[in-house]
């Protein structure tokens, strides 16, 4: 088979000492970057670009790619231990991961995160290798109506995230959608809700909102009682530091789910990895035998999104390497790097540079293994962070939050916003408003509005375009079903109760 031959070529390139070294450097840096909230792989790659000019190009792209997928491994660490989302895609991990940490299961959470990332990341690379060209062509069939339907499907996930009160969940989602709209309107260049502040012209950064609502609010909750609440049970013994065999068995479906959902969403240019983590969480919950336990510390709730945001990377490389179209912010920078080095990314990149492409693919396999080896032993180490006395931890978390937010755009205005969202998050916690729908609304709001308006631009105002195309119609119907399901269930249980009462 051609692929096998190519892969062998790839390994022969990737297994040279030089490239192995760069792979290690990249994955290590990526892990560190991922652990730190705010500073993302995109910014790190940009910072390292000038250094890469003097390097061998294959080694350079291997290193940069290593940073990219390495960061997804690290991103879960602060989410699980401190409820501080390390990266936008790690927000979903906070939901169950942090709860697991509170129950003394931080070790298994971190461990399963690494393992799921490994499994899904490998599947992602496999996908990249085997189905890249036909999948890329399929992805081209996604026009604005399909993207809108996809976002609607994502928003339908609010059903799974709302918890007790659907009304509050919807309200939170709407607020999130509004937050997404703050800034400059793409189509008419009009500014909305900027209150005259130039800093808001580009909208509110997602990191600011998520760190504020999760991390700062969490610290505030803990400040309520002196000495903190008995939160962090220190895991004792090696058994508690790693996922058990039972855990691994429980996550079988999650591994599959995360890998496939993540990869498919990643292929679509413009659909971020945050969407893939939310969707896979929703899928996991939908197919779970104990959906009501999600949000209280269910290990599949960590495995699915963590897997998704890794295989997503393999997916986002598909349009980059087959069509020269970046699938996300970070791939856009990888593309820029390739251009700066003199390559011409496009449909013929693979043909012209088989050594580099397949070397890169092979290095991603190797990189995933390196990361697993790197991260698993670190799990007990990281879990020890929970031993730190709370009065040291809380200022530390606040400090990390400020650093994380400031590192995004070096703007003090953003730090002020952080304070504001911290207060908002605290209020939401006290008033029982779920945070996840707000985050979901914020992530999808932009893309959804854009997709809808683009679709209407295309159809000159006729909404029918959304349902006249098979792909978008089917996704919209699915979204509708998801939203209606709980209501049907309620009616059914209501009827059953009525029947029981009669009997």
């Amino acid at each position, binding site marked *: 088979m051609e692929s096998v031959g190519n892969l062998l070529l790839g390994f022969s390139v990737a297994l040279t000492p030089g490239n192995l070294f760069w792979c290690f450097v990249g994955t290590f840096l990526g892990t560190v970057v991922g652990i730190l909230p705010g500073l993302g792989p995109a910014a790190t790659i*940009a910072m390292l670009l000038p250094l890469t000019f003097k390097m061998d190009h294959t080694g350079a792209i291997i290193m940069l790619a290593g940073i990219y997928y390495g960061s997804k491994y690290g991103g879960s660490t602060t989410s699980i231990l401190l409820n501080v989302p390390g990266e936008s895609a790690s927000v979903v991990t906070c939901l169950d991961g942090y709860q697991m940490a509170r129950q003394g299961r931080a070790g298994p959470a971190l461990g399963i995160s690494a393992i799921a990332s490994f499994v899904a990341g490998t599947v992602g690379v496999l996908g990249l290798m085997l189905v890249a060209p036909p999948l890329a062509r399929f992805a081209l069939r996604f026009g604005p109506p399909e993207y809108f339907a996809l976002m609607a499907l994502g928003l339908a996930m609010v059903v799974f995230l709302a918890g007790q009160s659907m009304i509050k969940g919807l309200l939170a989602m709407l607020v999130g959608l509004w937050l997404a709209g703050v800034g400059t309107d*793409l189509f008419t260049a009009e*500014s909305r809700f900027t209150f005259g502040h130039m800093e808001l*012209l580009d909208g509110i950064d997602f990191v600011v909102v998520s760190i504020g609502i999760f991390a700062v609010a969490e610290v505030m909750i803990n400040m309520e009682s002196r000495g903190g609440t008995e939160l962090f049970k220190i895991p004792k013994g090696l058994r508690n530091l790693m996922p058990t065999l039972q855990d691994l068995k429980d996550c079988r479906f999650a591994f599959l789910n995360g890998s496939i959902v993540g990869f498919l969403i990643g292929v679509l240019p413009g659909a971020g990895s945050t969407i893939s983590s939310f969707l896979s969480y929703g899928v996991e919950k939908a197919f779970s035998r104990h959906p009501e336990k999600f949000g209280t510390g269910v290990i599949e709730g960590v495995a699915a999104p963590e897997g998704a945001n890794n295989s997503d990377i393999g997916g986002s490389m598909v349009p980059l390497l087959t069509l020269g179209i970046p699938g996300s912010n970070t791939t856009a920078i990888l593309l820029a790097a390739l251009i700066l080095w003199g390559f011409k990314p496009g449909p013929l990149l693979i043909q012209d540079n088989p050594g580099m492409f397949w070397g890169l693919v092979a290095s991603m396999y190797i990189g995933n293994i390196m990361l697993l080896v790197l991260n698993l032993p670190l799990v007990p180490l990281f879990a020890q962070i929970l031993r730190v006395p709370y009065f040291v931890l809380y200022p530390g978390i606040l400090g990390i939050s400020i650093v994380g937010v400031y590192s995004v755009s070096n703007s003090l205005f953003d730090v002020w916003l952080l304070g504001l969202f911290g207060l908002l998050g605290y209020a939401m916690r006290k008033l029982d408003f779920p945070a996840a729908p707000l985050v979901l609304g914020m992530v999808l709001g932009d893309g959804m509005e854009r997709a809808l308006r683009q679709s209407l631009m295309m159809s000159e105002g006729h909404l029918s375009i959304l349902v006249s195309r098979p792909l978008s119609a089917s996704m919209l119907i699915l979204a509708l079903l998801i939203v209606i399901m709980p209501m049907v269930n309620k009616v059914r249980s209501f009827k059953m109760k009525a029947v029981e009462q009669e009997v």
Partner: protein
Amino acid sequence: MKRIWPYLLIGLSAMALDVTRPTNAVAFEPTKPIEAVVHTGPGGGSDIFARAIAELMQKEKTISQRMHVVNKSGGGSAVAMAYLAEKKGDTHTIGFFTGVWVTNPLTTAEAKVTINDLTPIVRLVLEPAVVAVKADSPYKSMKDFIDGAKKNPGQLKQSGGSVTGRDNLVRLVTQKATGAKWVYVSFPSGGERIANLLGGHVQMMVIEPQEAGEHIRAGNMRVIAALTEKRLPSFPDVPTLKEQGIDVPVIPQARGILAPPGVPKDVVQYWEGVFDRFAKTAGWKQYLEQNQFEDAYLKGPALGKFIDDLTVQMREVLKEAGAKVVR
């Protein structure tokens, strides 16, 4: 006490003379790394351009200090321009401007800094653009497309960036000149624009030639018009709009360098000198060729006139486009 006065007077006059006498003409030399401000994030057009130039300048040794790129993205060019305005008089900061720096303040009230507040140094290139369609499209020339649009007004679609960007402005002036009408769909990223063209969701787009090059080589795209005064050397068979009978002004996409306000004249001269030398280097000429940029070196009063003319032209076109012009 009384005796001090004459001495005081002499002292003060000496100081006054000292301040007003012409300083020694010691040429300015940068003493620390230069900050190059761009308005896009990492990976954006200006970012890549600035990085490439910084790299080339290092190689050709046209500058004694390192240049590192600072990304100040936000509000189009608003954040970058405000940042430069704050660095008043700073001799170690420069900005890489594009046409957006001219148009953005015209339409955005919050963008309080206009291009006239900053110190222009030099214009480096004009980025040409071409009109591209999918390879299997029935339109073999711009005329075909226009005819198609006339037959089905509002049915054909073009993908592009912001509605105040060049892509749309080209569409608007062409629509006005030919009477054809077609729809514009905004996509924030170049990748999405290309994806939608290749996926058949839109029929046409305006694209930079080097971006199109690869897709053409792969057989996915076809170029039907060149949006320049003269034919492009890389596309000798592609006629310009004018040649195809569509008489519209060429909307330039310029890239150049400017400095913060209040920068002393000798610093401006230094930069002009640097870019004078740089523009003559072989590395630069090669870069121009590779990226199919038009060498449009311009400085001094001619540059000032170019910016003024561009501002007037943009204001006109934007008003006609129905965009809200606030300045």
